């Protein structure tokens, strides 16, 4: 239990007052219901711990899907000054550029209803998932280097997608500053076998139908319409990313005493942004991010092939297109107005999505008039939301919003609660077909283990950080 007292700012925000070694206060986005859930875990303490780190600007933030992670809370956002500030691998997470990709199609529910079983089975067979799965693409050393440098652009050049896909991928599918020299041989080795694999845990591929449109004009620009079949992919940088984080975290822990930074938790180990170690981490992290974009690009390509073959459609008839691809575990150098001055900051988003408003340079040309799509998957039963970033996000959250529903129950608790129940049958009763590599994973990931995504999204909507555009309902889900 956390003994930290929070003060209510308004209906959707709580202030964590600056005490002890905290350099700034914290702000947690939560309504009354989510606030009550915060009492059950350590995430509030973690928001306070992040506030101890050198160079942190304004506030240590938590989005409404906040929950207990390791080091930084999941749902945490923190920005650091390039001068005197730090970068922390634990503030990005092991799964560098874990993220979501939403694909739209020309299909409606009627087109797939009868063939959903077949389609799902084929997707499950064709898309490698689960612990230790290996991908269809085996990389040579030279190709792997290209993947790390060019990300999804490598995949498109290799024939797995179109140039248009890059337009609607965050950072154009390739993060600048990637230097494969800063990635260990171990990480490279682990990455060779896993490109084009979904992974396990909370990663998934879901067939969804657009159930409700909240903002007609924005939905039209995003190419979303009611009854349309979409696909949501949630995956990341696999073993390569985990190894990069692990390598740099160990290195930073080893040198923690020399930097003289007082850490409330070793997992927050960090380096100054203007140090060689800090720069090396960012260059390696960018490689991890690029690998993840190439990975999701390949997963999209495989999905498209399965849809075309199973439904006997031409690419034109299927009309599969990338609505957007966001990363939600990342550190980015971005510019924000801090007390009237434009400042470059290193924004850590650990389980948080970028949510840039209309007109921002980083928003794709085709969405510039409305803002960046923000993709929020919920639990297996409830489906996903598409939101759009707003100006308020630039003022309050370093252009960030939530990334999902957020867990509320531990995996052991979920396994206990679901004893004697068939989660797949319960989901089937709700009209969601699920295939997973193990029954255990379905139990751990059962809908009750998560907060209600409607509540989480409503907090963002009412705060004006990112507003609701569409809600998608799950039809079928593949879990690793």
């Amino acid at each position: 239990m956390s003994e930290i007292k929070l003060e209510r700012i308004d209906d959707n925000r709580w202030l964590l007052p600056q005490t002890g070694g905290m350099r700034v206060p914290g702000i947690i986005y939560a309504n009354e219901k989510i606030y009550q859930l915060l009492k059950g875990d350590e995430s509030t303490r973690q928001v306070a711990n992040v506030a101890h780190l050198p160079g942190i600007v304004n506030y240590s933030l938590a989005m409404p899907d906040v929950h207990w992670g390791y080091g930084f809370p999941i749902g945490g956002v923190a920005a650091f000054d390039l001068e005197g500030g730090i970068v922390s691998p634990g503030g990005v997470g092991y799964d560098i550029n874990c993220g979501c990709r939403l694909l739209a199609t020309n299909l409606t529910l009627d087109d797939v209803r009868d063939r959903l079983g077949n389609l799902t089975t084929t997707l499950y067979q064709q898309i490698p998932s689960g612990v230790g799965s290996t991908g269809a693409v085996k990389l040579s050393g030279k190709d792997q280097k290209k993947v790390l440098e060019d990300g999804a652009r490598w995949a498109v050049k290799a024939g797995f997608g179109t140039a248009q896909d890059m337009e609607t991928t965050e950072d154009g599918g390739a993060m600048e500053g990637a230097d494969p020299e800063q990635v260990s041989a171990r990480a490279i080795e682990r990455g060779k076998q896993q490109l084009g694999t979904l992974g396990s845990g909370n990663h998934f591929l879901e067939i969804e139908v657009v159930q409700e449109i909240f903002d007609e004009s924005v939905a039209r620009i995003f190419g979303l319409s009611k009854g349309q079949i979409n696909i949501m992919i949630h995956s990341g940088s696999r073993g390569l990313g985990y190894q990069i984080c692990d390598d740099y975290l160990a290195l930073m822990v080893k040198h923690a005493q020399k930097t003289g930074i007082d850490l409330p938790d070793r997992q927050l180990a960090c380096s100054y942004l203007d140090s060689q170690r800090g720069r090396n981490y960012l260059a390696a992290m960018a490689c991890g991010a690029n690998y993840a974009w190439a990975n999701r690009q390949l997963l999209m390509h495989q999905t498209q092939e399965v849809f075309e073959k199973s439904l006997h459609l031409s690419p034109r008839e299927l009309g599969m297109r990338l609505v957007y691809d966001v990363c939600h575990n990342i550190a980015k150098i971005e510019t924000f107005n801090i007390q009237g001055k434009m400042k470059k900051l290193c924004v850590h988003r650990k389980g948080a999505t970028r949510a840039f408003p209309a007109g921002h340079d980083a928003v794709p040309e085709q969405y510039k008039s409305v803002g960046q799509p923000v993709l929020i998957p919920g639990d297996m039963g409830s489906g996903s939301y598409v939101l759009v970033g707003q100006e308020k996000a630039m003022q309050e959250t370093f252009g960030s919003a939530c990334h999902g529903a957020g867990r509320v129950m531990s995996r052991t608790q979920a396994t206990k609660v679901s004893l004697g129940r068939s989660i797949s049958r319960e989901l089937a009763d709700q009209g969601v077909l699920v295939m997973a590599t193990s029954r255990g994973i379905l139990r751990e990931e059962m809908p009750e283990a998560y907060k209600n995504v409607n509540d989480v999204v409503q907090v963002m909507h009412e705060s004006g950080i990112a507003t609701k555009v569409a809600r998608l309902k799950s039809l079928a889900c593949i879990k690793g």
Partner: protein
Amino acid sequence: MKKYKLLNHTADIRVAVWGKTRKELFANAVAAMFDLMVSMSGEDETKPLEEKTVKITGNDLEDTLINFLRETLYLFNGRGWLVRCCEPLELNKRSITARMQGELYNRQKNPQKTEIKAVTYHGLSINKSKNTWQAKVVFDV
């Protein structure tokens, strides 16, 4: 004595591990990690296990434990090597030398359970009470 137990943690896996000695504590921590990842039954006794010796260092006992677990996790995640037996030969606060016995991982023989992405430093502790050593570790899953 029970080797380990799961503790509450919202997103990841937190365990308490016990051992009568520090060496046993380290060995049990490895056993716990593998027990979480794969179904450990099905040892083929006719086939001799491979042997590896690893030497790992750290800033202090806690750090040495984490580095040791990280290395063992890499043997599995990076090399596909299933550790069946871990025997610490020498252990002090800043280093461990251990003999590992294992074999190439075979999914059919030892079905997967939870994928552990990493061993974290979060909430890490090692304590001794009476005659028992206890460690608490969070695995990222």
